[in-house]
């Protein structure tokens, strides 16, 4: 790999947008050691910073790690250089969507999109509707069915959504989303 020829402009853009200076990262891996989800990632968090430092834009934007990260901030609170890695992951997710690159975990993006559909329609999250649509689009009807049935039996999944009255005002809020998505 010829790192000297790589484009470092992404690293600068990520630093500016996330408000996080990760040049100070010296790869101690405290973030990777503490991350509860590291096993489900393709790169540990410190390696994502390394990709950015090397200017490996595509690798950073198309990795699974940025989608698996839930923003629990364990890494950010453990980093000896006080680097907010969760903010970096957050920024990379947004940029991946904006750039239209191949998404490494499309089912997670699909879930977030289903949540937004619910929010646009009702102004509030309707969990049963979100899960049904998510299962339909990922064709995973039978995965996890037992938990869904238990939740229904305990009436933890409302059949009907809780709704905002002024739904027109909510629709107005979504204009920026559709404008940015297009």
């Amino acid at each position, binding site marked *: 790999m010829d790192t000297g020829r790589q484009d470092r402009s992404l690293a600068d853009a990520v630093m500016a947008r996330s408000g996080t200076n990760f040049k100070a990262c010296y790869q101690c891996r405290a973030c990777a050691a503490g991350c509860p989800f590291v096993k489900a990632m393709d790169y540990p968090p410190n390696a994502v910073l390394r990709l950015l430092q090397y200017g490996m834009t595509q690798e950073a934007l198309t990795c699974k790690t940025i989608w698996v990260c*839930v923003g629990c901030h364990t890494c950010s609170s453990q980093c000896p250089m006080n680097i907010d890695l969760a903010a970096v992951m957050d920024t990379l997710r947004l940029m991946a969507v904006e750039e239209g690159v191949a998404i490494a975990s499309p089912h*997670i993006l699909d*879930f*977030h999109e289903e949540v937004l559909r619910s929010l646009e329609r009702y102004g509030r999250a309707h969990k049963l509707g979100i899960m049904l649509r998510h299962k339909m689009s990922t064709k995973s009807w039978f995965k996890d069915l037992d938990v869904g049935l238990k*939740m229904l039996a305990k009436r933890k999944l409302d059949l009907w959504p809780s709704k905002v009255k002024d739904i027109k005002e909510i629709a107005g809020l979504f204009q920026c989303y559709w404008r940015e998505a297009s």
Partner: protein
Amino acid sequence: MSQSPQMDFSYFPGCSLATTAAESNQSMIQSARILGLNLIELEDWNCCGSSSASTLCKNLALAMAARNLSLAPAGRPLVAMCPRCLHYLRGAQHCLRDDGETRRNLEEQFGRPINLDVEIIHFMEILVRCGLDRLGEKARRSLKGLKFVPYYGCTLFRPPRLARQKYFQGEMENILTALGAEPVTTALSHRCCGSFLSATDPEVVTPLVNEIIDSAVASRANCLVTACAMCQLNLEIRGTTKTRLPIFHFSEILALALGAEDYETWFVRHLVDPRPVLQNLALVA
């Protein structure tokens, strides 16, 4: 609190407490009633934006939180129980203070002002202000024998963006200890519950949740108490350990200690029945 404590609060339930975690909502409202607090639900509130809006469009996330701020009347604090809602509402307030242009655009869109002076606080903060003495006076059941793991959840515990704001670490222990319970601090009380991965990748979350529950069992706790409705749900639905421990909403234990009688309606909604543990301690019939 000062000598004449302010008892009126705007209340933001959020999507979880309005639906899946209705038992947390009910028990919190019971607690508030017993303590003489007047929680007034925010008229026509909407979702705070949640992590999904924040992931896909920052402007949308900000606008959703901002609409709620525009609905909050001046002169009384805005209270949330869900840590994530609290975080997004506070984050939006913070952002709009610095960004006058976006604020004006949103105000124009809503046709009403966004009051940025409204104080946004967690329900636990009201209790801290009330003081432990007052809580003790109102207590009707002793929580003696209840060994709980305080499980704050990540959002109440460590968001760096809110590092200069109020931390709640220790408050749950202070409050429940004053009511007779015993905190167990050797378990994994700061390990993430898995958040939305519980919906998208349950096989990733189950082993993590099991580790949390097992650590609580090994520490001889008889329950976990959480301040976050999503943590409560994930710990309940994703746990597959042999020994299951009940996962309480903080508000349930509080309301129980304060003498609430409608606990049966909350506990039937749990996937791990919490009644045996409470019956052993003679806390419920």
